[in-house]
């Protein structure tokens, strides 16, 4: 279980600090909604380690996450855009999720398997710049598979996609979350995404998370 307990944070000049308390279970999508500027992205930055709270605790199955820098947290990210490096191919982007000491043959094998799992077999050599929005998100998900981190943070990941792609990508996220037992936290202001995916739903109201 991913558990954030009273994480307190304020941006410079912010009068009332955020106070976030949240629980996310394995194999489930926990959704967070709220108005623009309500603090949704700040919450994800706190969970990912890009921001350090003034107080509170954050742990995953008893492991304290706050002392860990972002690169050592058991967390993968999927943002609305800019998840890939456009000058690299799909497989090169996915390879960034592999350990550094892995040999080439098994790297190729694992990349192919990850791309197959997200439905992108045969796209290995395609430049990221030439992929569609949905394909880019799938490549980023393939990288997440290889990184094998138990927490997946999604920041409006479907916002830039058309309706059809949005549905299929959303289904893929739900399926991967269940299959791999991820603790997925989805930040979104789209009610249909939340309704389709989330087992648990919080809303940010006046800097605090309220269970819906």
């Amino acid at each position, binding site marked *: 279980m991913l558990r954030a307990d009273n994480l307190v944070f304020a941006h*410079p000049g912010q009068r009332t600090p955020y106070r976030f308390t949240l629980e996310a279970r394995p194999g489930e999508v926990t959704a967070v909604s709220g108005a623009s500027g309500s603090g949704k992205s700040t919450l994800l930055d706190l969970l990912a380690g890009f921001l*350090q709270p003034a107080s509170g605790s954050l742990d995953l199955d008893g492991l304290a996450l706050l002392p860990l820098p972002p690169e*050592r947290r058991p967390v993968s990210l999927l943002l609305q855009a800019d998840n890939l490096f456009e000058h690299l191919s799909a497989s090169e982007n996915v390879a960034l999720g592999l350990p550094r000491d892995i040999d080439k043959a098994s790297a190729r094998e694992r990349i192919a398997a990850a791309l197959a799992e997200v439905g992108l077999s045969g796209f290995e050599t395609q430049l990221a710049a030439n992929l569609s929005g949905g394909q880019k998100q799938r490549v980023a998900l393939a990288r997440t598979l290889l990184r094998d981190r138990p927490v997946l943070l999604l920041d409006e990941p479907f916002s830039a996609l058309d309706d059809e792609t949005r549905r299929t990508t959303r289904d893929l996220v739900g399926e991967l979350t269940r299959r791999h037992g991820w603790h997925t936290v989805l930040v979104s202001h789209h009610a249909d995404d939340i309704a389709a995916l989330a087992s648990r739903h919080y809303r940010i109201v006046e800097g605090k998370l309220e269970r819906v």
Partner: protein
Amino acid sequence: MPPALIVSLPLVGRDQGWGWPRQVAGILTMLTLPRRPIRVASAAILTLAIAALIAAVLWAILAAATDASGGSRIDIAHLLRMTALQAGLTMVLSLLVGTALAWALNRLRFFGRDLVVGLFAAAIVTPGMVVAFGLLSIWGRNGWINQIADTLFGITFDSPAYGLSGILLAHVVLDGAFAARILLARLDAIPQSRLKMGQSLGLSAWKRFALIDWPALRGSLPGLGAIIFLLAFTSFPIVLLLGGGPANQTLEVAIYTAVRLDFDLVGAVRLALTQIAVCSLVIVVASAFSPIPSALGRSVQPRWRDAAPVRALQWFTLALGAIGFALPLVSVLYDGLGAGLVRVLGQASFWWSTLTSISIGASSALLTLVLALVLALGRSAVEHRVARTVLNIPAYAYLAVPAVVLSLGFFLLVRASGVSVSLAAPIVVVIANSLLSLPFAIATLGPPLDAIMRTRGKLIRSLGLSGWHQFSRIEYPLLGRDIGLMLALAFCFSLGDLGVIALFGTQDFQTLPLLMYRALGSYKTNDAAAIAALLLIFTIAAFVGLPRLVERIAHAPRR
């Protein structure tokens, strides 16, 4: 300490009793950027080393000023007035010409537009000596204009190529074209939505300029003007060739004359200190303005065209500008690739000078690349404003301590250390040329590196990429063209430099510009023309070819 942004929260709330916990009022840490302690430390050490080098140069100059006995008869006040006058006039005229040319280019669609835009972009690297020589070919006493006038009408004109008018002409040709390219980029950046709105409102050409163009241009004019002022204030080869005597000397040329011809070290040191003081003042003022980019994107063909009479004016302006810039270069090629070329190619001194120029240019360019990469990578790894400013200080080294002053300082240092000047010369020239190119190199590599960190910093950090992995997989391929452009700029600056080599050059150690200057000094005009033509060809080839070559190499691992 990790390269983290330390944000001190303002104390609002604490005294006003909003009840947020004390610990929030403490220090918060933002950890968006990957930790790169080696990059930051390397950049900091390099900054200190460059600062120490500049300090040593200034110390050598000050020590020489203190030790030197006797006076100097150099009229510094007059030189300062003349230098400021020509730099001020150059700035105003170049901005006017640049604005007019950018306006015309922004409106006109024609075949070969990219070539004209590229021609203006090349102004920044075109050696001043070559342009000065080209102007003499056109406007000199026996130049093309007088030859044509004499043949057709039997009259000749007084040459405007010497004195203040000649200096201004040469400066405006170079700096006007440079300004045109920068301002064109500003006009190209106007959002399409604003242009569509203006077009649908049926704005006249004048209203379009006043309401759409001018707001886009005016922000760049002060910073651009300051750079042009500094370039003209520290101009060396153009004033040396076209100044026509002491009356029109700049401080930079006066320093050279004092050291090389009059052996007046006291006067040279006083001039150097005056130069440093004025340049530093201009930099302080200029630093308040928006920076000028050195890497420019491709200019797009315009869609909204003005009415026919206005277009005629734009064609006239563009033709005048293109002829004004291109004609001196064409004349250099025409004169240089004629009779003198074979003679020059048969001289051993030419080949040695070419080899020296290319070796020094390549070494300077590579050293500049290393210095600029270390500084820019370090700077992009920190978010704290003060740390970023400190790591940017080396970029100002040249602007505060221009070529001839830097050379004078190195010259004094080398003399004081007891090392033979001829032995130290190649190393000093390479280091000096690198420092001179550094501001442009950092301005080229810094913004794209910052952009990578800004857009992908979180992703890179969350993926836990190592510093080397980040550079080899992400930054180097993306920077390919910028690295090429930077190498081309540094190579071309070094290739066309006369300021540094003028103090250190000997018969055995001379570059192409020095060989050309000496050929002119001994009235071997045909030799000088051939050298100028070859210098121009080398410069353009490097400026056009290097960015493409390096881009291809940088992207090679992807294919």
